[in-house]
């Protein structure tokens, strides 16, 4: 297996970077941060449709380009650098992969092509009030006269306030199933949350006898676990992008900003901070790439690699974001400077989708280091 970036992947990266540089510049990100509820409605159709990024990781049979987690990682790394706040993460990373891996023929045909075209936005609503991303749902699915309805509360749902389609894991007699809920369904209340990181909008979803369509059959726990690992790998790539951008900002500032008559980057304290971050970030990059390259094949190796990457990349991104502010000094503490946007994203992506502590605990379970209840 190669952990190198191929020429094709490099082209993809350049394409995405250019697009995001033009359309999702800091100003655009700030606009979405300062306004609530909306998202990049202008850029999205172009990014999803013309650039074909929504189709990227969707199987060819379902109208996609059939690329794998590695290519998705390239895109997310760039989105992480740019703090892209459009509905890519919810639609493509969460819902796209859930439909691909859990969905039956009908469900796939019904929604995946629209996702691939960029005409349907969607998300996956995993977390409930306890905040855990990795446990069985409390939300209940009831079956009556051929119709499913859902009852429960999901929260911290990425793009949950704006997505056209919500995919909701819920439990019923036979185990856990995945259910699709249209945005227009009755008994559905969606509340956008005020959170640390406005570039990743989160919502609370209340389901009070909401009609839903079952997606896939049998117990979905296993396939959902695989989807979670795919998401882990994707978030890790995004975190690498964010962390690398923080270091770039810090290094760029340290090269030009002078104090005591010399660039602050010539002081050892600043140099060593930056060099340490570089070491951490390259380690994070190796971990994220490895996780991406094995994520396609469900199983222990993919699960272990995903948790390794998430645990490390989370800590590195948060560390990089904090050091970036520190190196920038007073200016880094202002609202106007972008440094805090990265800190917000870093801490938010550290705690959503499984904290480092939880990932290490899961790693021990996967490696049978400790008993199942540790």
């Amino acid at each position, binding site marked *: 297996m190669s952990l190198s970036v191929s020429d094709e992947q490099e082209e993809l990266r350049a394409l995405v970077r250019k697009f995001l540089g033009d359309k999702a510049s800091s100003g655009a990100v700030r606009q979405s941060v300062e306004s609530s509820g909306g998202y990049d409605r202008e850029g999205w159709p172009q990014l999803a449709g013309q650039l074909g990024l929504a189709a990227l990781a969707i199987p060819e049979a379902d109208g996609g380009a059939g690329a794998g987690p590695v290519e998705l990682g390239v895109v997310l790394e760039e989105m992480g650098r740019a703090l892209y706040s459009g509905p890519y993460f919810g639609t493509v990373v969460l819902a796209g992969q859930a439909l691909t891996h859990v969905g039956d023929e009908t469900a796939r045909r019904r929604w995946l092509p629209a996702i691939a075209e960029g005409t349907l936005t969607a998300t996956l609503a995993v977390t409930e009030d306890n905040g855990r991303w990795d446990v069985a749902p409390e939300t209940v699915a009831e079956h009556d006269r051929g119709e499913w309805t859902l009852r429960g509360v999901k929260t*911290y749902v990425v793009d949950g306030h704006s997505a056209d389609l919500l995919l909701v894991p819920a439990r019923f007699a036979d185990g856990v199933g995945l259910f699709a809920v249209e945005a227009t369904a009755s008994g559905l209340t969606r509340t956008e949350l005020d959170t640390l990181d406005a570039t990743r909008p989160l919502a609370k979803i209340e389901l009070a006898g909401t009609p839903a369509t079952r997606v896939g059959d049998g117990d979905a726990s296993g396939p959902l676990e695989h989807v979670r690992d795919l998401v882990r790998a994707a978030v890790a790539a995004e975190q690498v992008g964010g962390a690398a951008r923080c270091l770039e900002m810090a290094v760029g500032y340290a090269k030009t900003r002078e104090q*005591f008559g010399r660039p602050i980057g010539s002081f050892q304290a*600043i140099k060593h901070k930056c060099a340490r971050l570089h070491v951490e970030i390259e380690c994070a990059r190796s971990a994220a790439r490895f996780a991406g390259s094995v994520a396609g094949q469900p199983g222990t190796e993919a699960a272990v690699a995903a948790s390794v990457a998430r645990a490390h990349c989370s800590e590195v991104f948060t560390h990089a974001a904090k050091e970036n502010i520190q190196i920038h*000094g*007073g200016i880094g503490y202002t*609202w*106007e400077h972008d*440094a805090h946007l990265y800190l917000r994203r870093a*801490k938010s992506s550290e705690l959503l989708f499984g*904290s480092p502590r939880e990932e290490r605990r899961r790693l021990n379970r996967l490696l049978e280091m400790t008993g199942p209840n540790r």
Partner: protein
Amino acid sequence: MTTEPVEAFRARLSEFLTGHGPGPRPRDPDERFAWTRAWQATLFDHGFAGPGWPEAYGGMDLPFAHQVAYQEELARARVPGPVGTGLGIAAPTIIKFGTDEQKRRWLPSMLRGDRVWAQGYSEPGAGSDLPGLRTTARREGPDYVVTGQKVWTSHAARADVFFTLVRTGAVADRQRGISYLIIDAHAPGVEVRPLRDLTGGHVFAEVFFDGVRVPVADRVGEENGGWPLVRTSLGHERAAGAMNQAALYRRVLTELEELLRERGALADPLVADRVAGFEIGVRIMRYNAQRTISDILAHGEPGPASSISRLHITAFEQELHEFAVDALGPAGLLGRNSPGAVQRARWLTGFLRTRASTIGAGTAEIQLNTIAEQVLGLPHEPGMPAAG
């Protein structure tokens, strides 16, 4: 100085605090500001302001042991601290180096909170490198004409007076060309632009001086002699104040522990281990303050524990707030306007706010340099001005 025994004084103060409490803390920032000022006036009017200040300027001129008791009682009563940084930073300098006329003119209204003082030291081009500052004060008859820009002035938007460092000599003279000047915030040519900090609030600002005329009589100390004044402080009063900070974080930590217990998070041994670490940290904060006080009482000097307190506290408060957010999990990410926000997002706000702890008033790196050179005697870097 009073001859009242410490415990009698403490009882009298405690009784006053019980009877005259400032009432509940308003949530609206403007109301809170007014509330803080009103409380400061109440203290002053009852003779309970300025524990270490001369009585001539409205202070209490308390012996040191009484000052410690004063701080302990105020911390216990959870009353607000003074508004602005005048009392803590400018007043000691004026008390030590000001003329009698200056003291009479400035101190009482500052102490009563009638006029709010804010600091104007840092500049956009010289955050940590104060000796390189460029705001100039050109002598013109009885006035200085001040032109330049300052940043990072807490409370600048509400200030009536700025205490500043300005360049009266050549830039190349560095710290030997700097004077200490008091500038009326309402004078023509002063413009204050509030800056949002990374929490989204407005606690600091940029201040522009465009040909502002400042009477020479408002200079403290000699022309070009401002630099040595910067490091003055009423060491003793500050030491007693450190107790106050230790009391504050004692309370904050207890509140966090209660929160974590309620949420069941303390059952995680890793969380419990970290909490024990903070218990150690907050106690050491108190021991450091107590040791400084002991050293002053025994030897008249604050001793080694005083120079390290700040670095200990800043690291503590950054780590504590981040830990709180982490331990709350995704709920820790909720802003104050969210349903389910934990304690009005105080921990989240604290996580962001304490980023300033290692930046404002000299970065952690500068403070480490200062300790290395001035306390440990390590050589300074070639081509660098000595720390401090």
